[in-house]
């Protein structure tokens, strides 16, 4: 009983009411508990440890939804239009951190690759994944010199030019096969790509929907993602190291261990279990 959703006090009160035999009471309570668990989509009562991390992005999504009816509330800065559109069709949003024990980091001159594996087995079979995004945090490259441009005020205030022109490319691939030779590279397919300005600190969101929906529907085996960072004309020495470390894809590339839980890559899935409305469904009453 202590491990269940019904608190011990409630169990005791019901058992002591004397309406049924103790055995009948226990059976009835167990049945009721199963219904409660089923309602929440759980198999047992969650018992999170103190180390459990709630990503800020999920809190932002929750806030955005709970303040949905308030038109003065703006979309959180960390949330893209893509996510807002995806959430409007989903009634379940899940977040996943990658399995750090399975990551594979490689860094050659001008190119850093990181292989991620996200365990998605907790997604129930009946849940249809409509969209998924891989979010990667990118820190501003320190020492990048600001150079105003004629773009929007936000862009101009943050613009910069480094020796590489101030831009890096991030490519996200789906891994769909092991390398042909032990020293070779895994078989991959490009899912999304972006040219990013290295003077800005922000989350980058990549659309990985095709891969995740295939993995969760059983269409393809989940071999994970490969994220590639291309640093054109990367400097050598300490400056070069700093430029390569600014995309937070691995704990070893992350300077501050305390902030790593909130800066590590995050996979967010948007799904529908075919019961009820979407999370960001706009209700007139609300």
């Amino acid at each position, binding site marked *: 009983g202590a491990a269940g959703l019904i608190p011990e006090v409630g169990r005791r009160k019901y058992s002591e009411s004397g309406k049924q035999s103790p055995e009948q009471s226990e059976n009835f309570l167990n049945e009721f508990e199963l219904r409660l668990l089923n309602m929440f989509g759980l198999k047992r009562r969650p018992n999170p440890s103190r180390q459990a991390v709630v990503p800020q992005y999920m809190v932002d999504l*929750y806030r955005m939804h709970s303040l949905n009816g308030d038109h003065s509330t703006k979309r959180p800065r960390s949330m893209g239009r893509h996510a807002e559109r995806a959430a409007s069709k989903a009634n379940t949003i899940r977040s996943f951190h990658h399995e750090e024990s399975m990551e594979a980091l490689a860094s050659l001159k001008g190119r850093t690759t990181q292989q991620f594996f996200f365990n998605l087995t907790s997604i129930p079979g009946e849940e249809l994944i409509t969209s998924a995004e891989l979010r990667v945090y990118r820190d501003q490259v320190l020492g990048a010199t600001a150079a105003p441009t004629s773009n929007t005020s936000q862009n101009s205030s943050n613009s910069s030019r480094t020796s590489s022109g101030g831009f890096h490319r991030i490519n996200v691939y789906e891994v769909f096969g092991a390398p042909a030779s032990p020293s070779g590279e895994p078989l991959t397919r490009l899912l999304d790509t972006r040219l990013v300005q290295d003077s800005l600190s922000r989350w980058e969101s990549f659309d990985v929907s095709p891969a995740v929906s295939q993995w969760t529907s059983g269409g393809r085996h989940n071999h994970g993602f490969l994220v590639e960072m291309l640093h054109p004309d990367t400097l050598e020495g300490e400056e070069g190291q700093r430029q390569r470390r600014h995309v937070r894809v691995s704990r070893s590339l992350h300077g501050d261990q305390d902030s790593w839980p909130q800066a590590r890559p995050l996979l967010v899935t948007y799904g529908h279990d075919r019961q009820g409305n979407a999370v960001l469904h706009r209700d007139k009453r609300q």
Partner: protein
Amino acid sequence: AAGHRKQRKKHQHKANCRRHALYVDFSDVGWNEWIVAPPGYHAFYCHGECPFPLADHLNSTNHAIVQTLVNSVNSNIPRACCVPTELSPISLLYLDEYEKVILKNYQDMVVEGCGCR
């Protein structure tokens, strides 16, 4: 007499089927350990009589009107029940049994309206 009538009316209104306040505090049942937000929510509940003759505001069905009418002549047939007639969803942000963070929309969690059915 006017005072009595007012009092009776007030008493009758109080007893009629309507929505009542009910705040579900997750910490009361120890669910705050895994539900991140909200800390609780206003669920409401329906309670009260469905007296003969059923007034319009009691949001009744044709069947409830007929059942109430029959009850007025045969008390073996119960009165219509005061139940939720409109419900709305809420979203919960919680950690599941694998410590994954989930934001999920749950249907029919908040009573919006009550009626005699």
